[in-house]
């Protein structure tokens, strides 16, 4: 029983990271109708920035905040420079853009910081949380930061005018323009926020997976799985999907014989395929019906 509780809690902790990645993916998907394949690499690059800042002597939280601001601005810049001009281009052009971005960021990180694995600090420590062997303080911190982030985002989108404007721009762009919303900047803002959310995921998971240019590959696939499971049209679903995937992954690794650590990733991919076959809109997604 203790093993079970332990695995569920650990699953919730990594699930929190998947939830952040899924949320970042869904925010951009809602804004521009494309999956951002480079979301993980952007998060990885941000994490390297924070590591570099700490190498230069800044405290963890100072580096954390500067990295958030950097990621926000970088996300907006990527949208303005690369994806705004592609807004009316066909799907495949955009996909090519995302893949290029992926490769560029991955190689640049390798060039600047090389591909050796680096230790990444945790501000929460890694002792047992509240004297319990079930969960470490870092895992508890991952859950805590994610919950705070989600509450903040909920408040932002539900109760602020700019949040309302962003939702309007994503749901009916033409009507949004007709009430005076600058939809183009709302998309850019969405990119900035998604990139900042991704950077939080990167900085929280780095002490677990260690810092290197390919650290987010697996994480992003879990994030996609979470987004597909919850429904790409539902931010709430993406978050729930993230936690579900985290728990599911851990339980499968522990209890299904022969899965172990090696086959965890294929399980996420199998999950994507099963959900797409059985419920294409995801658990919480809406079928978009287009009137002709």
């Amino acid at each position, binding site marked *: 029983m203790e093993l079970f509780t332990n695995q569920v809690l650990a699953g919730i902790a990594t699930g929190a990271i998947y939830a952040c990645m899924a949320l970042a993916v869904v925010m951009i998907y809602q804004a521009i109708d494309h999956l951002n394949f480079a979301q993980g690499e952007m998060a990885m690059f941000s994490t390297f920035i924070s590591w570099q800042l700490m190498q230069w002597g800044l405290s963890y939280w100072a580096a954390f905040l500067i990295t958030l601001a950097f990621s926000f601005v970088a996300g907006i810049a990527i949208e303005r420079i690369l994806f705004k001009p592609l807004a009316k281009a066909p799907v495949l052009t955009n996909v090519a853009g995302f893949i290029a971005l992926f490769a560029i960021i991955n190689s640049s990180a390798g060039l600047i910081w090389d591909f050796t694995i680096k230790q990444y600090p945790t501000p929460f420590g890694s002792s047992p949380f509240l004297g319990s062997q079930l969960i470490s303080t870092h895992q508890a911190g991952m859950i805590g930061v994610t919950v705070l982030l989600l509450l903040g985002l909920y408040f932002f989108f539900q109760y602020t*005018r700019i949040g*309302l404007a962003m*939702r*309007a721009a994503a749901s*009916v762009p033409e009507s949004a323009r007709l*009430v005076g919303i600058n939809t183009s900047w709302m998309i850019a803002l969405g990119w900035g926020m998604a990139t900042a959310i991704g950077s939080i995921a990167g900085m929280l998971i780095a002490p677990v997976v260690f810092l290197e240019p390919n650290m987010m590959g697996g994480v992003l696939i879990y994030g996609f799985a979470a987004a597909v499971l919850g429904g790409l049209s539902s931010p709430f679903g993406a978050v729930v999907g993230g936690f579900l995937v985290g728990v599911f992954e851990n339980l499968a690794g522990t209890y299904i014989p022969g899965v172990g650590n090696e086959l965890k990733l294929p399980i996420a991919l199998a999950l994507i395929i099963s959900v797409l076959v059985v419920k294409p809109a995801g658990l919480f997604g809406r079928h978009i019906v287009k009137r002709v």
Partner: protein
Amino acid sequence: MTTLLNVKDLRAYYGQVQALHGLSFSLNEGSLVTLLGANGAGKTTTLRAICNMVRSTGAIEFDGKPLNNRSTENIVRFGIAHVPQGRGTFTTMTVEENLQLGAITRKDSAGIVSDIERMYAHFPVLKQRHTQQAGTLSGGEQQMLAVARALMLRPRLMLLDEPSFGLAPLVVRDLFGILGKINREDKVSILVVEQNAQLALELADQAYVIETGRIVMSGKAKDIANNEEIRKSYLGY
């Protein structure tokens, strides 16, 4: 009477296809003007060109200021509220959020709150449903919501694209009654595009008839309604 909207030699294009061929008309401050015409005559395109949602040439002046080359979201800030064809409801949001979105360019939060109450007085059904998702409203209710959303801007000019479309005759009467009241009491100038010519002519002061992207007839709404020849050849009733 001062001219609020002045359109001169308007030509609009969808890709290579020209939809408007040099259309000119004007609208006086405080008046209610209707654009009539058959399907495909260019009524919707005219409204879309005013808000720069379609490529066009020619001069469009609002209150003496040119609107050409301004983005749609900037044109709204002049006080031009456009209720598009199909109503443009934010279906996944609540009725109240739809109203707040109508006022998203305004800064006076107290005024917005009192205007929402004013809309609920105009349209009691919206008050009953204010926490409901707008997509669950009936067609008539959504049209009321679209008009209310446009009024939340406190517009000087309201552009309405076929408000009667898909509504039951009784609901249409109701809606047109409200539009007339808004025009008289709130001093909002209205430009309404309609296929239901009979009803639009009862409501409007001035009417223009469009055929294949050109104005073919204009005058007082009363006169056009009384001219049997025009009615038969252009308006089909």
